[in-house]
């Protein structure tokens, strides 16, 4: 097995992925004992990381679906932004104003004038 790419393994089930992972690891072991085929070793290491990528991506996607619309999500599924931005007022909270000010705005909106030549 020369090289496992992410596209090849995205459709596989988690059990199959585990099997692939085990096989790759065992291959890696035998190669390391032989102390040869460094290119092949590199290929296998990359393949192992591809399998991990696919595993993690699928679990994360499934979890996002699972928590979609929930009020309380795990923190790593919430938008990351920056610490300060997460603590800002939401746009809705920003737009709240007193009825008094709303009335004022209606009564005295900002006028634009132009000078007539």
């Amino acid at each position, binding site marked *: 097995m020369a090289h496992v790419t992410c596209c090849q393994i995205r459709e596989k089930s988690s059990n199959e992925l585990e099997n692939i992972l085990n096989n790759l690891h065992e291959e890696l*072991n*035998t190669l*390391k004992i032989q*102390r040869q085929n460094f290119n092949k070793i590199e290929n296998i290491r990359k393949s192992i990381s591809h399998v991990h990528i696919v595993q993690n991506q699928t679990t994360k996607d499934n979890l996002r679906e699972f928590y979609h619309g929930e009020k309380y999500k*795990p923190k*790593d*599924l919430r938008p990351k932004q920056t610490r300060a931005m997460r603590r800002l007022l939401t746009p809705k909270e920003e737009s709240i104003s007193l009825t008094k000010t709303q009335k004022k705005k209606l009564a005295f909106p900002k006028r634009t004038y132009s000078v007539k030549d």
Partner: protein
Amino acid sequence: MGPKKDTKETSATAKKKDTTAATTTTATASAKKPTKPTSSTTASGKDATKVVTKDRKEKVQTKALKAKQRVVRGNQLTRKRKIRTKPRFRRPFTLRLQRQPKYPRRSVPKRNRLDHFAIIKYPLTTESAMKKIEDNNTLVFIVNIRANKPLIKQAVKKMYDVDAEKVNTLIRPDGEKKAYVRLKADHDALDVANRIGII
């Protein structure tokens, strides 16, 4: 409460009439108001029940009133002060609830990076390592530096299916950890080495 009382009295009197008339019982009365069937048998019993019901009513009333007052006022009047026999005050045990998290903080628990594949890097094939295999029934591995002896034992068991009698470790000058894994007597290191591919 007033009208209810009246109905009770009337029902009682009705009952009395019924039983003084004759025979059976409180079919009508009980239909009107639930009372104990046993209480409505004899005439004398009738008088007694009439009195009891009135008294009982008052009792229940005062009891209800008291309960209400108690709720409003709090239990100040009949609360007893604790007798303290020691000069020291120790913090009393209070309720400690278990955590009921509304969401897990991490969506997925962290993967164990030090699994048995990562622990054992490769076996050594130097001359002294070979000597160890033949003479001392031990295998020599280069091992992850963060692995400890019990972990190494488990990893060897998982990967190569052999039981280790003991594990000795040292950290080489180039920063790698070397593990001498002495196998149990019923395993032959030479066979295992052949099987693994060291020889």
